[in-house]
């Protein structure tokens, strides 16, 4: 699986949707994922990619990790992979 596919699979599982129904434009809220689901997604991403995601549930919008859409999450994970591989 590619990085994109893995992240979409994680989000789809959390949203109880088929991966085909998770589009890059969708926000997690669009997919019915609440704050607990979001924290679980981030945990699953950290475990799958062996990265640390800077995220504080008190202020998701001001965390360095962009969670505004599925596509933004994919881009942020790729950035973290690049940064944390150094």
């Amino acid at each position, binding site marked *: 699986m590619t990085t994109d596919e893995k992240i979409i699979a994680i989000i789809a599982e959390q949203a109880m949707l088929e991966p085909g129904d998770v589009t890059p434009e969708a926000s997690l809220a669009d997919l019915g994922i609440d*704050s*607990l689901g979001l*924290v679980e997604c*981030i*945990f699953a991403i950290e475990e799958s990619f062996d990265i*640390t995601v800077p*995220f*504080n*549930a*008190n*202020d998701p919008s001001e965390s360095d990790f962009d969670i505004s859409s599925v596509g933004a999450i994919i881009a942020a994970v790729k950035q973290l992979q690049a940064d944390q591989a150094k």
Partner: protein
Amino acid sequence: MARVVITGAGTINPLGADVPSTFAAMREGRCGIGPLDILDVERLAIQIGGQIKGYQETDHFNRQQIALYDRFTQFALLAARQAVGQSGLAFSGALADQSGVIFGTSGGGLTTQDENYRAVYEEGKNRVHPFIVPKLMNNAAASHVSMEWNLRGPTFTVATACASSNHAMGQAFNMIRCGMTKVMLTGGSEAMLCFGGIKAWEGLRVMSKDACRPFSATRNGMVQGEGAGVFVFEEYEHARARGADILCEVIGFAMTSDASDIVMPSKQGAARAIAGAVRDAGIPKDAVGYINAHGTGTAANDKTECAAVADVFGRHADKLMISSTKSMHGHLIGGTGAVELLACIMALRDGVIAPTVGYEEPDPECALDVVPNVARDADIDVALSNAFAFGGLNAVLALRKFA
């Protein structure tokens, strides 16, 4: 219904090892939160807490006692010793049979569990000390206090996460009020500042890495603390007959369940508990001068709590004071309501309102008088203490000045 008064108080918490030193710290707005000194702290993302510094169990307990007393039990015993000492009570005969202990705790002997899981899983040991079970059980603190002071009536432990102590004190209050008991030792204790205890909280992503700043627009999460608060709740006529020094009166209690979400707070659930406590106390809403807030410093709690207070009190919400002492001692989880009740007693008895320290910037969603950074002199008659737990369980106590 019988009236209930408080005739003794004791504590050990990050601000002090007794009530006078805790009051002094609250008056000065001193913060007891700092770097954690625990095993494997370097593997934690959250490395601060309200830890009781300089604490040596061997200063207080012998080897046999330490084999049976987890840190949370030790804290409870130390606080109870102060509270019973202040009350001047001795328990024997009929009074012993009509006196009991109700404590709150969330993690119980979590440090004992952490140490022993480490021994069997990490170190590969195949044998543990024979007393691990009686040491880690949640009711250990209540049981040891009952044994120490011969309290032979209703004794048990309440575990409702962050509302444990308030639920415990609410039960103690109602047992005396309905005539079931004469004296209850009540409050709570927590000692969760171990690697596993903090690692679990880290997972939720609600902890601050730098400070607890309740109600401030810059708040970024909660900070854990540890310690205990124990009170002697006594039936008023019993206290009066023996000429006891009365710290304040307990006049109301209410508890509600949000029945909605396992972690997100609900304004309605909180408001129903606050309004319920005022109603139970039989006082007008505008009699409330101070609220010790749950005020965890998380985005969700503080705005929900302020909205609930505004809903219940209407225009009076702008006149009352509300502060969160968690900014100084951290969140003592199952013990937090007990230590926070001290701030209510200080407000009623000494006329000093403990501040919300670490306050940097107003948040329009928390637009109440949160007594920022500096303690304030004020003459108030009634104080409330809020506790809202994960699981949507809310418990609010109402206290009145005793004059």
